[in-house]
């Protein structure tokens, strides 16, 4: 009885203390609670009905900046009757796509407001140049996405927040909402396999499997607000954002000149676009013959490059195996590893220089790889000879050991006989 009374009394005193604690727990951060949850204000009426919107909005970054429901939707937040709350000259209610662009850009195109957050103000200008913007703003095509289609209407998060729709690993999914809709894309004559192809490509593997955020997503090549497929003459420059040396080599060669005169679709001619196919050394000549006649000088040059690339690949692997053999044999491999790294650098330069089709440069680089590979293998052969010599040294050791054993054995037998 006394225990029950104690329990009740404790409950009476602790219950009021628990309520704010619960609120804090809901908001995760006690300091952020009062600043973010403006809806704690009992006179703010919007959240009385729109509870789901309130919850979504509180997760986004706009709630942290003191923006409230009526700042975007208008109306009277002090009125608790729907009729009075949803009236007045400033009430706009749910915004359509056009109105959304205007509303968002009213702040995001204003340098005075964006300066404090370090955000750019050119989104609207970029959007106007994009295919999406052209369709919506000029053709009033409401299939085209507006700001909230990608960034969400209420849970708006910065692109480096992993929960954001535009986070590097989420952006493809966001684009896929429309670009994998066969019915919608059919209206514009577009395919729907881009996202899957990208996911399986070298870029997709780097991004999704290795979590390498340097790997490009949809927006890296097409732009985000200014989303457009790159023009034929721009493709090499788009790829060259990351593949700087390849771009330089490409423009130095005949293919680069062909791409500038629109005769060749840049990098995609050999590597495809979303699939970014890696051409293995033994597939170079076959790739060349997709455009060039098999007995043409260009195809023969391709064959020469293929043979060179295949040979250097084999030599590089042989050097790697020689280093492993040296390490297994208990030899120090720091020096040969350094030499091997030089060979790897030259090998990577071959991959880049192949785009210039400059056979002299390629020959020089492959000679470097061959020379280093030969040195490394020679070091391994010397080590193998030493091992053989060590093995030979064991012959006198075992001869002496066995001779001593035999002599001792005879002596022991003689001693045993004596004892008997």
């Amino acid at each position: 009885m006394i225990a029950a009374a104690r329990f009740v009394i404790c409950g009476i005193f602790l219950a009021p203390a628990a309520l704010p604690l619960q609120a804090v727990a809901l908001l995760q951060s006690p300091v952020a609670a009062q600043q973010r949850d403006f809806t704690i204000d009992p006179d703010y009426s919007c959240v009385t009905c729109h509870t789901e919107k309130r919850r979504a909005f509180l997760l986004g970054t706009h709630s942290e900046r003191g923006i409230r429901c009526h700042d975007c939707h208008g109306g009277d937040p002090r009125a608790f009757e729907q009729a009075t709350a949803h009236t007045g000259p400033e009430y706009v209610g749910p915004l359509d796509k056009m109105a959304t662009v205007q509303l968002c850009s009213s702040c995001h195109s204003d340098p005075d407001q964006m300066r404090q957050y370090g955000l750019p103000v050119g989104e609207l200008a970029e959007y106007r140049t994009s295919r999406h913007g052209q369709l919506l703003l000029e053709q009033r095509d409401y299939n085209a996405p507006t700001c909230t289609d990608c960034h969400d209407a209420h849970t708006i998060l910065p692109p480096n927040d992993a929960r954001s729709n535009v986070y590097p690993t989420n952006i493809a999914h966001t684009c896929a909402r429309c670009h994998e809709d066969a019915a919608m894309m059919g209206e514009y004559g577009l395919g729907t396999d881009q996202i899957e192809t990208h996911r399986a490509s070298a870029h997709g593997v780097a991004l999704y499997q290795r979590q390498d955020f340097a790997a490009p997503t949809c927006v890296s090549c097409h732009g985000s607000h200014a989303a457009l497929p790159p023009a034929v003459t721009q493709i090499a420059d788009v790829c060259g954002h990351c593949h700087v040396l390849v771009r330089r080599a490409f423009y130095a060669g005949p293919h680069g000149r062909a791409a500038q005169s629109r005769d060749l679709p840049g990098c995609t001619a050999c590597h495809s676009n979303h699939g970014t196919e890696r051409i293995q050394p033994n597939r170079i000549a076959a790739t060349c013959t997709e455009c060039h006649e098999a007995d043409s000088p260009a195809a023969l040059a391709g064959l020469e490059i293929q043979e060179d690339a295949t040979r250097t690949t084999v030599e590089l692997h042989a050097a790697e195996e020689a280093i492993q053999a040296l390490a297994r044999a208990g030899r120090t491999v720091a020096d040969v590893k350094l030499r091997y790294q030089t060979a790897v650098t030259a090998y990577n330069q071959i991959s880049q220089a192949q785009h210039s089709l400059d056979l002299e440069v390629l020959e020089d680089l492959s000679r470097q790889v061959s020379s280093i590979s030969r040195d490394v293998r020679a070091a391994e052969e010397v080590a193998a000879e030493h091992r053989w010599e060590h093995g030979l040294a064991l012959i006198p050791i075992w001869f002496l050991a066995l001779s001593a054993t035999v002599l001792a054995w005879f002596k022991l037998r003689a001693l045993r006989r004596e004892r008997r």
Partner: protein
Amino acid sequence: MSETKDKPRLRWLAQIWADLKASTDPALLAVARFLGLVYGPIDRTLPIDQAARKALGRRLPSHAGWRHALGGITYLLFMVLVVTGVLLSFYYRPSVQEAYPSIQYIVSEVPLGWLVRDLHVWSANLIVVAIMAHMARVFFSGTYKPPRETNWVVGLLLLLVVLAFGGTGYLLPWDQWAYWTTTEVLDTVSRAPLLGIIASVLQGDVVVSGATLSRFFAVHVILLPWAAFALLLIHFTLVRKQGIAPPPGRLEDRSEGVPFFPNHLLRSFVVGVLVLAVTFSLAALYPRPVGDPANPFELPTELVSSWIVVDVSLALIRYLGVWGFSLFTLLGITMAVLPLFDRNPERRLRRRPVVLALGLLFFAGYLVAWLAGRQLESMPLDTELRSGEAAERFVPQELEPQTPEGGSSAEDTGEEEDQP
């Protein structure tokens, strides 16, 4: 017929031998006389000669045979470890910066340094085999029973010392395999009851670091040698005092036997020569591979073990976890204290089924664990590899968590607090 033909042929050989003897004897005699001049006064005050003759002439029971040479092999390998260890310590430097380069120097620059190092590594392996074989003989023949129970416990303490020698020596190369194997074993042991305190004291830091290397080196070259020599002294004194145990079913009889020299000494010589030849062969043909330098931020891609006990320990840790490791240790402790409980003088194996089962469980378990450990070739990609505190400070690159926005939550909270 053949004798008459051979005699003239061998006459020239006999003549050469006689000439050699005639010319060598005076020289050898001169050396002996000089040594006699020096040794004479010493022998008059210290009767070393007499003591040596007495020791060599000590009679051993006639049943003492080849199987009693196992202890001698262990001692021989211990002395090989001492000699090679001293030679290695001339060049080895126990610091994080210098440990790995000094091993590289020993292996590549010091004349026959590779041989000294590999003899040390292989002797450390063979001594475990020799101890296990010696221990198995004593265990199954029941010679650990009174009055030799103290020597059994001393022998097991010597086993512990040898294991500690190997455990502390394993880290000294300071390569990736040594570093991460030590990390894994220490982390597991630190979670075991009682042993955890020793592990944390030996580690000396939240991760395996320079502090651990210093401690391991000090234990390896200062503490353990003293302990080993003290225990060896007790072990040999007790063997000498109590004599060799009679075969099961016979009574102690020390009245007759065969002199130690030359009978048992010749047997020990034969076994010793063969063991040394095997150790040289293994060192020359199967050197310890050279790993990459220790890197606390990166797990090795493969695991190469070079000590039997490490294979056994890793097999216990990976397949049975900390409790399996503890239970196996408990089994070893049970064997150590067995003479306290097993007071029955019966030594015939057929009449000791419980002890037979216990022994088979231990020795067969050790063999199975070793074979299982040989199959382990990779490190566990497991965040449990290190304690929480250590993981926060030293997270391997592959396991590093993604930090959204590149800033800590504390900084964000601070910014919000500053807002009006």
